[in-house]
């Protein structure tokens, strides 16, 4: 069966169940999946359809830090053990290999690469993001467990960089996912990246790197921004 057939089948099924629901007078969606309107932090009203809009099925929830010394100890552990997701999103990924190889060796600072989002807590957005990648980045970001940190590399993530006038790349990353640390450069050198990790460590140890909660808190605002540009919201048939 081709993709098109699959999609049409799915929509057919949806239509049928919707019709059934109408006929029976009952909603076929779970209450948390109902379409609703929410108020964004900037006051605008956003329409939300969880079935289509949320990659993770449910909206992320704010996870409060623990109290006192436990959290402090955990923050220290988090800072000294940063696991970076191996997702080369832009040209900055060319500077990742020097970091994991003899010259710069970020392992000694407790930073290492992990292949899967489930096991990583730091996400390096290495430069520009095309809309097509942004969609995957959001999905990947939402898959990562909290607390999670985002490092944004280079001009592109701050204000579009070289590609400020490109129809394909976004201009400012902080509209779509919260960013902890920005590193200037095009490309930032490995040393600058290490400095970025240093800054991130400081932030984590000070308990200031709670952007995952910020994302959960302002989820609708972020979603609204994402929805503005990700027009084809359906993922390809990833089956996991």
């Amino acid at each position, binding site marked *: 069966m081709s993709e098109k057939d699959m999609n049409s089948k799915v929509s057919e099924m949806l239509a049928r169940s919707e019709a059934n629901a109408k006929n029976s007078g009952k909603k076929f969606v779970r209450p948390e999946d109902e379409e609703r309107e929410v108020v964004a932090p900037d006051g605008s009203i956003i329409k939300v359809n969880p079935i289509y809009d949320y990659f993770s099925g449910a909206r992320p929830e704010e996870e409060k830090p623990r109290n006192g010394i436990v959290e402090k100890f955990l923050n220290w552990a988090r800072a000294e053990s940063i696991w970076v997701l191996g997702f080369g999103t832009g040209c900055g990924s060319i500077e990742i290999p020097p970091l994991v190889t003899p010259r710069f060796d970020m392992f000694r600072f407790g930073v290492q690469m992990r292949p899967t989002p489930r096991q990583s807590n730091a996400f390096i957005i290495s430069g520009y993001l095309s809309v097509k990648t942004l969609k995957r980045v959001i999905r990947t970001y939402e898959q990562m467990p909290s607390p999670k940190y985002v490092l944004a590399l280079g*001009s592109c*993530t701050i*204000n579009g*960089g070289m590609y400020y006038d490109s129809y394909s790349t976004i201009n400012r990353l902080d509209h779509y996912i919260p960013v902890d640390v*920005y590193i*200037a450069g*095009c490309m*930032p050198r490995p*040393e600058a990246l290490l400095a970025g990790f240093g800054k991130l460590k400081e932030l984590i140890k000070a308990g200031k790197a709670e952007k995952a909660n910020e994302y959960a808190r302002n989820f609708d605002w972020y979603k609204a921004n994402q929805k503005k540009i990700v027009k084809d919201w359906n993922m390809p048939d990833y089956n996991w």
Partner: protein
Amino acid sequence: MNLKDILTPFTAWSRVVKDPVTIKDPLSREGAPRYRGFHDNDVETCIGCGTCEAICENEAIDLVPVEGIETKDGDSGLRPKIDYGRCCWCALCVDICTTNSLRLTNEFKWVDTDPDNFRFIPGVDEKDWYKKEEGWRKPEPNYHFYPQERVKMEELGPEERGDSFIEFVKGYSKEQAQQEADRCVECGICIGTCPAHMGIPEYIKAVRNDDMEEGLKILYETNPLPEICGRICTHKCETVCSVGVNGDPLSIRWLKRYIADQVPAEQYHEILDTKKIYKDDKKVAIIGAGPAGLSAAYYLSLLGHNVTIFEKLDKPGGMMRYGIPEYRLPYDQIDKDVNYILSLGVELKTNTTVDEEMFKKLQKDYDAVFVSTGLHLGRSTRIPGSDHEHVFQSIDLLRKITAGEEIMVPEKIVVIGGGNVAMDITRSLARLQRAKYGKVQIITTSLESEEEMPADREEVVEAREEGATIDPGWGPKEIEIVDGKIKGLHVVKVLSVFDEDHRFNPKFDENQKKFFEGDMIVESIGQAPDLSYIPKEIDEQLERGPRGRYLISEYNQTSVEWLFAGGDIVVGPDVIHGIADGHKAAVGIDNYLNSKK
């Protein structure tokens, strides 16, 4: 699978005994000496020309005003502000920087949590990397983003030109003009400095695009005498040209001339779209057909007013015709510009001297009067012997030469003065001498030293080429007269011309003396206006400024509301100032006339 293939890879383990090659302290590692790191700007040398903004392909650079940096001639007072959310560190901005003030240091670490912080003004905002000496600078040698040398203007050699009064500057050919226009970086620093605020980058662009009609339109927006200005303008614009900071400034004047030269007079009406101008019933009188008067007349008639120009001499042009020798400004070119202005319906009354009586009549008959009579009285040195009949004022001689009158040309002449007029008379007399005697014996001396001489550099050089002796730095002391005939000029060495406050206060060294032989002395140390035609009662109403000049508003209105003044009598002796004055006065008169309704 053989045994060798299994065993050889294990040789890699030999590395385990070697020390790691890791950089121990990567965070304090320096970039290479040429590394393109973060920006630094020497704000003192920077002139805010904005070429960095123009070449930046990422629109990363803004020009913003900076506290403590004043806008002045040749410095826009703006400084580049760089957005590190855009920059790609290509350093094109450094490579094109006209003043070589922008550079990149070899610092490269900047980590921040707030994306809005990544905008800063290099050299102004405090950053700790300015102290780094190393980093990217403009490469050497022979690496320029625009040609540094101006295109040579073809001229007649001194031998050919010394004989006659024909124009010796040939003007650019099309290729030359385009090549020269190509050097412009379109910063627009010149516009503020040009008294007439001509759209210089735009008309240079027109030259580049070979669009003469567009160029002419731009010229006439601010300057109705392009042919004249294209030849004899004092080109203050070229002194501030940002291209000239490192290299030759653009020859803006010659490019202006090039545009005007390319368009035949017959096409002006069509190009400038002045075939039909609606005239109203307002009448304006202009006294003096010099640059200011003509310029005012042009813009007033464009605004639809009826203009009458009163000129004392028999031909219009004023100082342009009677003060500037023909080899610099041929009369037919003056006629070309003037005729076009006259063809707009401007009435010209030559050989009409305005006196007090007539002035009163003008006040009655016309709605407004614009006075631009210029400086036609020569100043005298008032040294002993300067009242001799063979001591002449350069301005009178020049007028006579233009009018074709016979003047005295002895074998030896001494000229006092270091300005452009002095050069004009020197070179004119030299031509006459050569025609008469076959050789040139003329000495020009001035108070100012060679470096301080107000005359244009090329004028001095060319005068020397034509055989005149320029010997600056001497103060005239006495004219020696023996038997009623002038023998020569005694001079003493000048130590300084201006005092600490930059006031005119020459100091002499009486011990160093010199004697310039000459049968005739020409004084060319400045001119004064002749305002005797203004009636007393009006003159009393007029407020005057510190140097006795009339005080005028920014639209050249005097304290008598119907009377406007402009040109040399209110600003310095300069064609382009006159033109600018005329334009401003035209706007002022128009405003006045409209407000009167």
